[in-house]
């Protein structure tokens, strides 16, 4: 139970007052000489059932009345705040607010979105509980904003939505850092979220550090999760997977491929009207979908022959979540995909060259240039999309060049050289070559994302067919993407803000592996890296909201999109922005579409050992997150008093009793 005036609970021992009075009364007995002892003895021998129960009930009613009065005066709080505010007011209340697009889902009632409902509830709770200092952590969670309560109450409902996913571990880490830096005393952290897996990322290694960090605080930090986990089964989201210009015989057209996703649980046949808008010109079509996904491939939209670059928007009718009903895209002439192969043995790098040069679709230009270490200085790095490095790891100047490439979005895949050196790049270094006579196959790989992701149709790549005969493992802080039977890592990725850095532990040479002979996986891997690296070179391109950008978003100019977004948060809001000669279409990350909800047990496990409470709420709920329930205790007290009075009423005398009047005045004459 939680109270706003917990000090008044000190008076709770007064509940025992009736017992004390009863005991005192027992000691104040009188002595009387009595003749009719036979009746007293008979009375004491009789069953005491009801009389004893009545006495206990009277005592209980009196105690309950006192308890009710004390509890009512202590101003108890209700609904899910168990464990919170139990010891009085807190020094600091940190609000961690999930502003991701999935929080824009509306409930059945017309009470607003999950975010709006949550903020309204938090404001109401803040007004009730009060806190000297309020810290708001929202969006990407990097900057805690500490404000006074009165300002927080005004500002809290102004927190708007974003198109970026929330990084819950980062937000809680930020809260942890704030508490540590400011030596905040008693702190409550109120989390408002829909507990989506892409926002919480429960398998993230940071959770362990966060958990340990909070446990190390001398003062207990209490967590309250206001969860809006209810899905919207009929919610649809639209995402453009590709928009490219295609020249036809008499003009040009735009080929748009998109996917419509229905949230988990939705079923049945539905018609979905699609509206395309390109340069103010709108066109509509309709599709009929039955399953959870619908892929529209290369939908043709006529273009002006002279328009080579541009942007557009596709939208679907409003549904439970308005934040995923439109998707911006940009298009322009395809950029040549240039691969730089750095090798110490040009002949051995032939498979790499083939994989990089073969174009996946007509109209694209794919080139691969093989250079050795001595020719690096003459390379034009600004047009390179992908670097395949099969040479001793770069140091100094070469390493700096690669870092610059990665920082602007370029991709690098390292293959082990013939003689692995001691050099370290991106925190990783090669070990020594070793033979694997068993030709280990790939046992596990990440099929949900990155280079080895499943195809658009959902089919898995035949990664398991790859055999590795020689391996030179990479050691360092890299995340495994594919591991061999026996535990060795075949492919790993180094965490970077932009771009991609991969380490492949074998080469494509037939003596080392079957990467080249079973070339599908290898080709897809190279092409995906090449495509990702080329994206940063395109002048018109799509970017995910919230991801770091190579150029400063504050310099962007908005062409379309949410007008409430301020310039510092352009990168967080969907829309089309102009940055110099580039046009960027910012949209929600792909993981936002139909992201699963983290199970209650999994969430609880993240806070195991910490003071954690959870309140499940619904979007559009009209009630308050907390409310005082002293009236209930007052009513309880009145009921207890009425019950006590009823039990204390003297019992009605039986008119036929032999003790009553007739016996007194009449004699029995036999």
């Amino acid at each position, binding site marked *: 139970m939680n109270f706003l005036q917990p000090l008044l609970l000190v008076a709770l021992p007064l509940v025992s007052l009736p017992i004390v009075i009863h005991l005192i009364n027992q000691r104040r007995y009188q002595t009387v000489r009595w003749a009719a002892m036979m009746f007293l003895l008979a009375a004491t021998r009789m069953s005491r059932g009801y009389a004893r129960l009545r006495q206990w009930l009277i005592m209980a009613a009196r105690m309950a009345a006192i308890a009710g009065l004390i509890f009512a005066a202590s101003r108890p709080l209700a609904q899910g705040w168990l464990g919170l505010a139990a010891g009085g007011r807190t020094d600091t209340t940190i609000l961690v607010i999930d502003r991701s697009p999935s929080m824009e889902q509306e409930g059945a009632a017309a009470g607003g979105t999950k975010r709006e409902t949550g903020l309204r509830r938090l404001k109401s709770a803040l007004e009730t509980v009060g806190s000297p200092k309020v810290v708001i952590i929202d969006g990407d969670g990097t900057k805690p904003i500490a404000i006074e309560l009165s300002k927080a109450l005004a500002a809290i409902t102004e927190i708007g939505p974003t198109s970026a996913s929330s990084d819950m571990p980062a937000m809680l880490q930020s809260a942890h850092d704030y508490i540590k830096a400011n030596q905040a005393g008693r702190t409550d952290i109120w989390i408002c979220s829909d507990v989506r897996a892409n926002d919480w990322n429960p398998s993230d290694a940071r959770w362990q550090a966060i958990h340990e960090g909070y446990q190390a605080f001398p003062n207990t930090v209490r967590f309250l999760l206001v969860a809006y986990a209810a899905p919207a089964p009929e919610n649809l989201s639209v995402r453009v997977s590709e928009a490219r210009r295609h020249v036809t015989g008499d003009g040009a057209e735009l080929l748009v491929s998109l996917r419509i996703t229905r949230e988990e649980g939705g079923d049945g046949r539905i018609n979905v009207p699609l509206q395309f808008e390109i340069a103010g010109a709108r066109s509509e079509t309709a599709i009929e979908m039955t399953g959870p996904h619908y892929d529209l491939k290369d939908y043709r939209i006529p273009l002006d022959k002279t328009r080579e670059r541009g942007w557009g928007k596709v939208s679907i009718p409003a549904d439970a979540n308005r934040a995923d009903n439109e998707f911006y895209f940009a298009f322009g002439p395809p950029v040549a995909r240039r691969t730089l192969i750095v090798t110490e043995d040009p002949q051995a790098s032939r498979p790499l060259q083939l994989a990089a040069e073969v174009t996946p679709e007509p109209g694209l230009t794919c080139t691969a240039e093989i250079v050795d270490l001595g020719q690096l200085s003459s390379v034009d790095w600004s047009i390179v999309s992908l670097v395949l490095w099969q040479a001793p790891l770069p140091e100094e100047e070469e390493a700096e060049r690669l870092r610059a490439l990665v920082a602007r979005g370029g991709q690098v895949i390292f293959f082990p050289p013939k003689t692995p050196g001691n050099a370290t790049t991106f925190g990783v270094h090669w070990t020594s070559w070793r033979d694997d006579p068993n030709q280990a196959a790939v046992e596990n790989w990440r099929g949900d994302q990155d280079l080895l992701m499943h195809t658009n149709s959902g089919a898995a790549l035949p990664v398991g067919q790859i055999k590795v005969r020689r391996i030179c493992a990479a050691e360092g802080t890299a995340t495994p993407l594919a591991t061999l039977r026996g535990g060795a890592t075949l492919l790993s990725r180094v965490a970077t803000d932009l771009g991609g850095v991969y380490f492949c532990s074998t080469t494509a040479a037939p003596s080392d592996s079957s990467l080249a002979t079973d070339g599908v996986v290898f080709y897809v891997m190279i092409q995906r890296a090449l495509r990702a690296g080329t994206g940063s070179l395109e002048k018109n391109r799509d970017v995910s909201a919230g991801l770091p950008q190579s150029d400063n978003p504050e310099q962007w100019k908005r062409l379309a999109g949410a007008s409430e977004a301020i310039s510092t948060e352009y990168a967080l809001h969907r829309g089309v922005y102009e940055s110099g000669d580039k046009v960027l279409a910012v949209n929600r990350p792909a993981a936002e579409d139909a992201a699963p909800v983290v199970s209650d047990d999994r969430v609880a496990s993240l806070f195991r050992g910490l003071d954690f409470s959870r309140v499940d709420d619904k979007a559009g709920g009209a009630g308050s997150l907390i409310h005082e329930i002293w009236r209930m205790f007052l009513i309880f007290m009145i009921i207890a008093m009425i019950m006590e009075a009823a039990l204390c009423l003297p019992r009605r005398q039986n008119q036929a009793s032999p*003790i009553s009047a007739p016996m007194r005045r009449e004699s029995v004459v036999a």
Partner: protein
Amino acid sequence: MFPDRRSRSFLDPAVLSKLAGFPLHARKPMQGTVSGRHPSPHRGSSVEFAEYRKYVPGDDLRRLDWRAYGRSDRFYVKEFEADTNLRCCLVLDTSGSMDFGAPKISKIEYGRKLAGAIGYLAAQQGDAVGLACVADGLVRTVPPRRNPAHLMAVFDVLEQAKPQGTTGLAEVLHELAETVRQRALVVIISDLFVEPESLRSCFQHLRFRKHDVAVFHLLDPLELNLNFHRPMRFLDMEGGPAIFAEPNEIADRYQKAVREYLENLKAVVLESAVDYHRTLIDEAYEQVIIRFLVGRTTSQGVR
């Protein structure tokens, strides 16, 4: 009336003079020694015709009814009822429980008044009066005599009676049933704090001996209702163990026990043909005696 002119606390001349107009009758034929007001089981010489009886040799020829002989040509003897006096045996309970009573009067004092007044009335109409004080046994006893001086002895014993000891009423009544001559009026004045079932045999024993039994059951209103509002420690006036009790808690059960006791006692007295009077000691005793005397007058005449 009082040869020694001593005033008795339990005798009120005003009350006695008021009661003088009510005769004390026996409900059954009494077997006295002299002529009196009460019916006798034998034929006598009163003016009240009883029956005709066939003449048998030896009968007094003066009692032959010659008119009946003239009508029937047979000899009949005409018989008349006999009136006699009675022996009134007053049995007063002097156990410790009789000391209980309201602030104004205790049960023993009330009993003294009842016994004194009934004894006086009986003596006044020529009946013999005796007294037995009963506690855990027969404490004092005065055999019935009919002279006024003997009445003073009865009053002295009444005055000296002290309430103490346990109640052994049942044993004493059995004893009295045997020791008192047949056909006497036995007046029991007691709080009867014994099991009703034990009294049943006593009353039937007295009835078997053809005694006319009257019972004054003395009760204090407080004993019936247990009207206390604080925890009480009850000390047994007859020396038993003390009991600590919360009156509010046990009042229901106490009253239930009282009710059961009174109902059982009522059944006993009805079956035993006892003249039973439940008497609350906050009531004026002369009213109780008047009710007693009037009740006996209406049931008089049974021989």
